[in-house]
Structure formats: structure tokens, C-alpha cells
């Protein structure tokens, strides 16, 4: 029988490298899946599309799914996505302008910091950083700036720091437009911690156990491939995201784990709850529905 078509929503950035690799390497087909990938603008669009059934599976950052869980959505991660690991796989960095006098997070009290989206993982990260530095979390003013515009915002002085994602970190730093203030701003979530992953409705996973399991296997294979052939993976990334190849070769990539462990998620839940994004923490296992387990 022909494989049932499966629509997958992803975001065309390095965090979704698994998808590109799985597609290029034919892992989906090998698992008997007919996957159509839809590049999406972000979790805000993917979630309703998954909820409405337009997408079977989507990629989302962890905080969004945690928040959705709290509001009563029945989403669950079925495959691990990107993981952040201090020192080796820091895809985020807190940048300041190249000529900035700011030397530590403490100096950011009363200043404005750009993050890509309020109310997501980066807001929680900034608040955790502030607390660590011993200043009140709300003494830092957060504004929303899209990642591509952060470097410009820094050099214009409209923000004093920015929590930037790859490839923009490497781009800005190598152009000399900015320097790194905190190399691992997400440390508070644990080491390693889950940046994002592949999720679906629990009801869908229950109704399509075979497809869900096949998808998870394909993604896991992709993770293994990336770990084994980082250069090929980067080539695929550059080709698929139209990222300049020089840049693609330089940027930091997240780690793509092969298993989905609650421990990598619990830290995110706890930090989100501590800084008021969530009313109370819950066990991260509630959010996992690894098919076949």
C-alpha cells in the first residue's frame, strides 16, 4: 500500500537540521513515510496548524509546548529535537555591541535587551540570568526584535544587549559588529537541555502509532547521521536554508540527541514556572509520548 502522506511543519533554521537530513538521506521514505515538509514562520503558526489537523507533526521550542500544556492543549513531544550543551553546542549567545562598555549581566540593570519573542524560552533565560547576576529579573527591559535585526539594533544602540541565535551570532561576531557577553545564556535550564522538538497531538499519536514510531525512527537516524558526518550535515543545511556556505561552515550547531529524556526538559519547566510564565511546574514526563514505549 502507498504510504499515507504526512505533513510536517518545521522552521527553516539550523535547529531543524534533522528534518533536512532525514529528507536528503531518504530516511522518511525508508521508514515507509511520504513526508511533505512545510517551512513555517514559527511555533505560533505551527501549533494551531497541528491543533487543527493541517499538520500531523510540527517542530516547536519547548517553552511553547509547556505553555500549551498548561492551557489544556494535548500536545506531546514524540521525537527529540535540538539540545543545547554548554561550551560545545551553544547556539544562543547574549551579545553586546562591539564597542559596548557593558562587562557583565549586572550592568544590564535598567537597560534594554532584545529577545526574539516575549514569553518564550529566551524570556525565561534572561530572567534566570538576571537572578543569577543578583539583579531583579524585571530590572531588565525586554523588547521583541527578530533575530536578523538584532545586530542592527545593537549597533544603532536601540538595545544594549541581544539574545541571539545562530547563524546570526557567528555572522555578527565575525563581522565585528558585536561581541559575546554570555556564551551560554541558557545554562539555567540544565546541561544538556532540550531547545525544541517534534510534537503532535496526543490523540494523533494514539491513532497513528505506526507512523509516529516510523517518524521518530527517521529523526533518530538523522541525529545519528549528523553526529557522524557533521560536514555533510552542514552542507545540507547551507544548501537547504540558502545560508552562505562560509557561514554554514562556521556556525555552532545544537546537538541532536537520539533519545528524548525527561531530564532535559524538566529544567525548562521549572525555570518557566519560577519566572511566572507558568503558574506551577509539572512533571516533564507528561509532555513526552515517545511512540513504541
Amino acid at each position: 500500500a502507498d504510504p499515507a502522506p504526512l505533513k510536517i511543519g518545521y522552521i527553516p533554521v539550523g535547529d531543524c537540521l534533522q528534518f533536512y537530513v532525514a529528507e536528503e538521506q531518504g530516511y522518511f521514505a525508508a521508514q515507509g513515510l511520504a513526508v511533505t515538509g512545510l517551512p513555517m514562520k514559527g511555533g505560533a503558526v505551527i501549533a494551531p496548524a497541528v491543533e487543527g489537523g493541517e499538520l500531523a507533526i510540527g517542530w516547536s521550542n519547548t517553552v511553547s509546548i509547556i505553555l500549551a500544556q498548561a492551557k489544556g492543549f494535548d500536545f506531546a513531544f514524540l521525537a527529540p529535537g535540538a539540545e543545547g550543551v554548554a561550551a560545545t553546542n551553544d547556539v544562543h549567545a547574549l551579545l553586546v555591541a562591539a564597542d559596548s562598555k557593558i562587562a557583565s549581566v549586572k550592568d544590564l540593570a535598567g537597560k534594554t535587551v532584545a529577545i526574539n519573542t516575549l514569553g518564550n524560552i529566551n524570556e525565561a533565560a534572561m530572567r534566570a540570568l538576571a537572578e543569577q547576576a543578583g539583579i531583579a529579573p524585571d530590572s531588565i527591559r525586554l523588547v521583541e526584535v527578530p533575530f536578523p535585526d538584532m545586530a542592527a539594533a545593537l549597533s544603532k544602540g536601540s538595545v544594549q544587549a541581544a539574545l541571539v541565535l545562530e547563524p546570526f551570532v557567528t555572522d555578527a561576531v565575525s563581522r565585528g559588529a558585536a561581541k559575546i557577553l554570555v556564551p551560554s545564556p541558557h545554562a539555567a535550564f540544565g546541561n544538556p537541555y532540550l531547545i525544541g522538538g517534534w510534537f503532535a497531538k496526543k490523540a494523533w499519536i494514539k491513532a497513528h502509532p505506526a507512523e509516529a514510531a516510523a517518524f521518530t525512527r527517521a529523526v533518530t537516524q538523522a541525529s545519528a547521521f549528523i553526529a557522524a558526518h557533521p560536514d555533510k550535515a552542514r552542507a545540507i543545511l547551507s544548501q537547504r536554508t540558502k545560508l552562505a556556505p562560509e557561514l554554514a561552515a562556521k556556525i555552532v550547531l545544537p546537538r541532536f540527541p537520539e533519545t528524548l529524556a525527561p531530564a532535559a526538559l524538566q529544567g525548562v519547566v521549572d525555570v518557566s514556572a519560577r519566572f511566572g510564565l507558568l503558574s506551577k511546574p509539572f512533571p516533564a514526563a507528561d509532555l513526552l509520548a515517545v511512540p513504541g514505549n
Partner: protein
Amino acid sequence: MKRLSGLLVFCALAAAWEGLSRWGVVSRLYFPPVSTIAATFWDLTVSGLLPGQALSTVSRAVAGLLLALAVMAPLGLAMGVSRRLSALLTPTVELLRPVPPPAIIPAAMLLFGIGTGMKLVVIVFACSFPILVGAVDGARSIDPGFRLTAAAYGLSRRDLLFGVILPAAGPSVAAGFRTAVPMALIVAVLSEMIGASSGIGHYILRMQRTFAIPEMYAGVAMLGLWGLALNAGTQQVLARLLRWHAGWKGGI
């Protein structure tokens, strides 16, 4: 009774929504019952959160509108009066006019950053063309009788400008301005959705992203109310300024 029919239809639709949501015909997560939305709206309004957010949006929209009016109305009048100026500027204007304002937001962000400046630029861009075109049209379509009269009575250019051209083109400028009002609001909201930490557009987007759906609807409703108020307010002011025009057109 006549007034009631409108209320009746409105209430019937609201009740239908409530029912569909409560019985689970539509996703309750994305279509919470009207009563829930209303309660959320009330709480957020009383707490001052929503009105405050809306106010910052509306004030930006109004500032952009007034700026566009201040620049484009005189320019348009001048273009309407002087064929030479109009010939000079028309190609440039016609080139810029069809660009939908939302499309320039990314460019404006590159150029002007993410601050209020960028938003104003985009709002002004969106409002400029209706006002400009209204002014050009108004100045061009002045009844030649008025100009002849002014000439026959030996009035100066200044008197002609302030006593004849300005009032005669007023209604047309006003019509352009009225087209610009909803545009200003929509573009203000859009620009906030892309880069801001305040404003009702940002609020709505944020609620949407954090799955606070009733709050999102409350924000949309608040925006709707402000839109209504802004429209009505503009209408009032213009009607006052152009009382003679309403009477003139409706009176003969």
C-alpha cells in the same frame, strides 16, 4: 424596536458561538465561549492593561496620521494647483503608491531599527497616499466658477489659497483622511506585531503565542472598539469642520 433588531441579530450570533463552543462543536481551546471572552475582557479592562496597551497603539497611529496629513495635504494641494509640480512628482508617487505598506515593514526595520521611528515611518507611508490623492483631487476639481469669482473680485493669491482652494478641497482631503484612519490603525498593529514591547498588536500576538486565547480575543475586541471610536471621532471632527459641506451637498 427598530434599534432592537440589530441587537437581536448580534446577540443571536454571540449565543450561537457560545453554544458551538460549549457543546464542543468547535475547538474550545481556540474558540472559547463568548462568556469567557467577555469576562476576560472585563477583567483586563478594569485592570487597565488592555486600555493602556491600546492607547499606545492608537497614539502612534494618530501621530502617524497627523504627520502624514501635515506633509501630504499641502503637497497634494500644491500638486493639484500646479500642473508642473504634479507632472514632476506623479511618476515617483505612482511608483510608490502600489506597494502594500506591510511589505515595507522588513525594509523599514533594516533602515530605522525597531523603535517608534520605524513604526511611524510605516504608518506615515501607509497614510500618505490616500491623503495625497485626496488633496490632489480636491484641488484639481475645484469648480472653476470659484476661481473665476476670486479673479473677478481681484483677490490676492494668498486669499485664493486660504479662502478658496483650501476650503474647496477640504472635503476631498477629508475623504482621503478617512480612508487613511483604519489603515493607520491596521499598520500600527502590524508593525507592533513585528517589533515592539508594547501596544495592542504586540499584546494580541503574545497572547496568541502563549496560548492565552481568551486574552487574545479580548485584545482583538479592544482593538475593534478603538477602531470604532477612532472612526467615529474622526467623523465627528470632520463633520464639524465641514458642516458647510454636508449642508451644501445635502441641502440644495
